């Protein structure tokens, strides 16, 4: 019995040879997975910091400067996503999806937040993806130079999945709620009403999707509803307190706060 066992450990056995190949394949896959997890963590952190930066917009004079800085930070994040795309070149992205989905969701949250501040609208999945196209130069050692392709350059793309997009947008609503409360505290009366309108649309959108979306969305729906509630409450308070302005003060207020008063909002 001891004899036959030694045979099996024989490295020339075809079984052992086959398993050596499997070993390489599995190790390569795990290594790639690990690299993706690490890049994803970087993407998460930088995206989160961009979001904090964007919240500074509401009380600094030089908003444009902050927005540009945020844009710059997101450019760096996109470079990281480019690295993810590089890793995924020729792969089935769903094979490694779990490794990078947290980072991508956070990026969607940051990018859509910046977009909302700039354009007061919801960035589309297509617009997100349009920014995730990367030009790369072929590394010399990988491909021979004698090939027919245009020498050096190629295009890499990264496609955010609809469900990562949705999950990112779901988180965006929390940031919008924070922005709304801050706006009230900063005496900005316009923004809360705009935000409540916008959040209501997103909420209606999510209600419309309901439980047909990914499981995690249903979990976030409750938080979304709470955020909407907070924003609606803020608008309610603005309206109620606005009802008390004595007639003689209206003029004064219009002078000092013109920027803030939406004519449509009537008394406020």
């Amino acid at each position, binding site marked *: *019995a001891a004899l*036959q*066992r030694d*045979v*099996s*450990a024989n490295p020339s*056995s075809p*079984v*052992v040879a*086959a*398993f*050596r190949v*499997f*070993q390489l*394949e*599995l*190790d390569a896959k*795990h290594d790639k997975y690990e690299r993706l997890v690490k890049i994803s963590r970087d993407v998460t952190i930088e995206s989160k910091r961009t979001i904090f930066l964007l919240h500074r917009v509401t009380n600094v004079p030089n908003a444009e400067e902050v927005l540009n800085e945020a844009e710059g930070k997101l450019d760096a994040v996109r470079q990281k996503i480019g690295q993810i795309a590089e890793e995924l070149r*020729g792969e*089935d992205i*769903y*094979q490694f*999806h779990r490794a990078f989905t947290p980072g991508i969701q956070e990026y969607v949250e940051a990018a859509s937040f910046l977009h909302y501040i700039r354009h007061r*609208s*919801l960035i*589309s*999945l297509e617009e997100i993806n349009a920014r995730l196209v990367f030009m790369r130069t072929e590394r010399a050692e990988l491909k021979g130079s004698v090939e027919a392709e245009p020498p050096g350059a190629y295009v890499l793309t990264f496609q955010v999945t*609809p*469900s990562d*997009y*949705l999950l990112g947008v779901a988180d965006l609503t929390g940031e919008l709620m924070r922005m709304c409360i801050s706006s009230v505290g900063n005496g900005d009366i316009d923004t809360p009403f705009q935000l409540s309108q*916008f959040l209501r*649309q*997103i909420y*209606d*959108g*999510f209600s*419309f*999707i309901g439980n*047909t*979306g990914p499981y995690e969305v249903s979990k976030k729906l409750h938080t979304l509803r709470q955020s909407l509630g907070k924003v609606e409450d803020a608008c309610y308070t603005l309206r109620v307190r606005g009802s008390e302005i004595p007639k003689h003060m209206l003029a004064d207020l219009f002078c000092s706060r013109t920027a803030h008063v939406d004519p449509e909002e009537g008394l406020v």
Partner: protein
Amino acid sequence: MSVTDMFSHIQGFLSADQDVREDIRKVVQNLEQTAREILTVLQSVHQASGFKEIPSKCEKARELFCTVRTHISDLKTKFPVEQYYRFHEHWRFVLQRLAFLAAFVVYLESEALVTREEVARILGIEVVREKGFHLDVEDYLAGVLIMASELSRLAVNSVTAGDYSRPLRISNFINELDSGFRLLNLKNDPLRKRYDGLKYDVKKIEEVVYDLSIRGLAKEPEAIEK
């Protein structure tokens, strides 16, 4: 594009996804049905009477694999080929069962370890992901491990059926398999758990061989000229 439009747009994606999954589920049910039929055919080898019928049973199983290939062809049409891993969970279980069945048939026929290429051929799929619907290496390995546990049962039942040389051949085979698996670095995943089970199969077979040898029933395994 308005928020409402955006969500309708996304809803479109989601509905399409659900439809695809629904379609896949149906084909997978058919595959499971056929897999159970093949298993029933092959189970008879565990019975005393079944030992001489192995060749005919294998043939029968081979025929049923035609049906498997038809179902899998059908399955391939249900989703874009490059999104294999998006829907992997749906067929992973049955594919591992089928890999096991293919490996078992091949073992019964030739007492050799089926290659991943051979399993792929029997199932009518690819080995290399880039070429189309393929057999993941983990799924192939899982199938092989299910077979190992079936072989430990076979070793036991061979003795009952009076075949005293088969356990020794199984023992050699399974030891070689064990050596192979020891080369792998597995994660803490289902495959690892299954691989832990292999140790018990090896142990069981070793016990059978031991029982035979202390009774002088174990012939020097001349059969291992392979």
